[in-house]
């Protein structure tokens, strides 16, 4: 049986939304439709799952491609330990090792690489709750919706226009981080950290990461130490990052 046209159209809009092809006005229109028909929220969640599944499958396919390339290459001959028959040979080897030390030392990651390795935009646990018509939604709700969709540039002005609160400041900091405005993010996170705002460990983790990016390693280490000695979601990552600093 053919589905009603309206539902097909909504599905197309949801697909475009997940693919990042809607402009802000279209996104708000879609929010209004989702809001008036909660069953469409399931369609949105299904669509997000399918997109993630496709990415996962593509990743596996790329891995198989690399494995098949590997199968065509000569095995790697790892150098074995040798016994040196003459002092001259040993001295030559030491020189090579020193040279290798300097070569490989250049491979040590810098602060930017470390940040890129550990940073992922914060994802709220609960999805944005839709209430009322789209015109009823306040700036914060709209900003949250855009934030979750990865539309950080569009989300920022809406956050800035919303009612002041710790939650709002937390998301402004997260948005600034996602937009690479680390100094702005640090100012807000420092304040939230100082006042013990919620979510405490998340604030500490992102502040520590921001310090890594700005090469304030001492400050970062202090916070990572704090995270690695208590039971929390960032404990393992904090320990790992701490060892890399």
């Amino acid at each position, binding site marked *: 049986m053919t589905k009603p046209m309206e539902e097909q159209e909504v599905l197309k809009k949801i697909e475009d939304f997940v693919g990042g092809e809607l402009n802000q006005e279209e996104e708000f229109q879609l929010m209004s439709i989702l809001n008036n028909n909660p069953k469409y929220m399931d369609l949105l969640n299904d669509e997000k799952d399918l997109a993630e599944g496709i990415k996962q499958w593509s990743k596996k396919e790329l891995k198989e491609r*690399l494995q098949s390339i590997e199968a065509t290459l000569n095995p790697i001959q790892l150098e074995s330990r040798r016994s040196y028959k003459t002092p001259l040979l040993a001295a030559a080897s030491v020189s090579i090792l020193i040279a290798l030390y300097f070569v490989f030392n250049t491979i040590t990651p810098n602060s930017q690489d470390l940040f890129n390795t550990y940073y992922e935009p914060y994802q709220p646990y609960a999805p944005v709750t839709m209430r009322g018509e789209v015109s009823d939604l306040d700036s914060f709700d709209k900003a949250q919706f855009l934030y979750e969709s990865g539309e950080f540039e569009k989300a920022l002005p809406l956050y800035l226009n919303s009612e002041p609160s710790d939650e709002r400041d937390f998301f402004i900091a997260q948005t600034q981080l996602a937009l690479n405005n680390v100094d702005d993010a640090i100012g807000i996170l420092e304040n939230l950290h100082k006042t013990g705002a919620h979510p405490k460990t998340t604030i500490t983790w992102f502040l520590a990461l921001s310090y890594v990016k700005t090469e304030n390693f001492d400050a970062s280490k202090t916070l990572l130490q704090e995270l690695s000695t208590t039971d929390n979601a960032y404990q393992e990552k904090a320990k790992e990052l701490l060892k890399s600093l």
Partner: protein
Amino acid sequence: MTDDLIIRQILKGDYTVLDAIYKEYREEFCTWICKKYGGSQEMALDVYQDAIIVLFQNIKEEKLSELTSSIKTYLFSIGRFKFISELRKKKTVLTKDGELEIAGPGLDMEDDRILKEERLTQIENALEQLGEHCRELLKLYYYKQLSMTDIMIQMDYKNTSTAKNQKYKCMQKLRKLMHLK
């Protein structure tokens, strides 16, 4: 090939440049990582392949706009972190008695993770049944994040509307295979 060119090619979704990078640094990476941390060669190769995939994703997601080191340095640093992380996992998963240690997130989070993994496996199985043409199209759109114009060119469609329509049909097929609406 310069790093800029490599990034441009990867942004176009060109896997052949990944093949070239893979071959170029594979031996150097494995020798370096095994000497430094003492893991097996198989593990080093596995981690190296994963590092190449992360490199691809980070470039596609434009996380490398501020890369201050070379692609090689960045690739090696990703590989190093992954390798250390793998070594730690191997050490911590088994206790001295050889039993699995339940650590980290609580059981609820673990249940969620398992459910999510099951769901992703179902989607992967559905994709296997979808047909090569649709799989390729969906990969170009969702994973390689190409524009409809680029997809039109790569898949040889008449115009972007045809490409978009085809993508919609493929998603419909996938939903049907997943018994979704």
